[in-house]
């Protein structure tokens, strides 16, 4: 997750057993690369104590 090499989306899709045709992967690769480039630096700056904004209540609030 910490390296800046471009991901091989075809290999990732295959490794995950996703049936995405190669042509479709080629069409979305640029968008995914751009999103990676924008997102990765933000993650590196995250303070470790920050918890995610998920919603779960162990007890029904009612």
């Amino acid at each position, binding site marked *: 997750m910490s390296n800046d090499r471009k991901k091989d989306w075809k290999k990732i899709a295959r490794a995950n057993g*996703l049936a995405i045709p190669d042509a*479709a992967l080629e069409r*979305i690769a640029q*968008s995914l690369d751009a999103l990676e480039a924008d*997102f990765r630096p933000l993650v590196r700056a995250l303070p470790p104590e920050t918890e995610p904004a*998920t919603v779960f209540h162990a007890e029904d609030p009612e």
Partner: protein
Amino acid sequence: MTLLEAAAALRRRETSSAELTAAALQRIERLNPSTNAMQTVMAEAARERAKQADQELARGEDHGPLHGIPVAVKDLFYTKGVRTTGGSSLFADYIPDHDAAVVESLCAGGAVLLGKTGMHELAYGITSSNPHFGAIRNPWDRDRIPGGSSGGSGAAVAGGMVSMAMGSDTGGSIRIPASFCGVVGLKPTYGRVSRYGAMPLGFSLDHMGPLTRSVRDAGAVLNVIAGYDRRDETSSRRPVENYVPEIEPSIRGLRIGLPENFYFERLDPDVEAAVRAACQSAESRGAEIVLLRVPDIAALNTVARVILLAEASALLGPHLEQRDRFGPDVLALLDQGRLVPATDYVNAQRLRRVMQGEFAGLWSRVDCLFTPTTPITAPRIGETATAISSQSEDVRLAATRLVRAINPLGLPALSIPCGADRRGLPIGLQIVGPPYAEALILRVAQALLPAEVAVPRL
């Protein structure tokens, strides 16, 4: 006629719910072939309900301002016994066995449900050019998109088919059509309006709200649909206020933040001029314009995109074995979402918390923010790229650029028309407030837009 004007006319016995409903159905019959705003028209049920509403009002049984008023809801709100497609061929024949919370509230408020409005496929896009049910067209120029994903709601309200249509907003889907169609669109605070019974797209980003022809109408609808609902785990128990602003409210002394960074960096010049004119108008009414730098909106947009890609694909992934059931744009987004690792989703939700904290600091300096809603006016149907300041930009990314970041923050925001471009197309002003400040942003909007929105001649 606005919703509240119709409500007043009903109570003066100048009209009846049956007459309002018949007029709306006639207008739909005339305009829907060229706009495709309405996906399903419930003519018989609406006529029956209108008759009942007239009888109730005649015997003094008044359920409030929506009583007897014809309205529509986006075709992702469950309606008991009535087809709810979500704009998808997957659900083309889906008939829910219960109503969405919003539909329940509207009906309890006495509204006459006239039908379901068309939308972008699965609410996952901004053109409303639906591959299964046809392109929805903007009443201002029928060669242009109405925006989306609540495009049918925007077109139905701008076209005068109904005075109010409900929409949903995951990355701008109420505010974008409000901007492109020249109507009022309100996205309330996350948790203010129940999501129960609305087909989800991004669980943690979906918001429900009205599109109307006046600011006061939006407040009147919020009065009816806001409130705690135990069936929506994110629903707030915070008490509901009266959201209808005075007719001529004061905004004297209010501090309106005008961002110096991001929001004005790449805009159609007509949009920029109209938004700056709206600021001057607010200043002339005694508000103080505070120039300020806002937190990293581009980063928030990125975080919102990661969250939505993951949530939408988690939800719709099981249907992806039937690839031919999706339009190409939605399919591409769903494929992308399946390649977002779980760690990225968790980290995006962590970043959301950090940015929420950064944004919260703004509200000690200003009461609300003014920004353009969209950097452009309505593009032509089929356009995939738009030129802004000689730079080409993907239409979807351009349309969502100034609105998307507000969704992960869950803040209330609305769009009101604030002028027109050189072609006469509407321009939207976005007003954003702190959590649960719907009454405040509606007051500011009402000060700037005290009358019914301008409507196209149809």
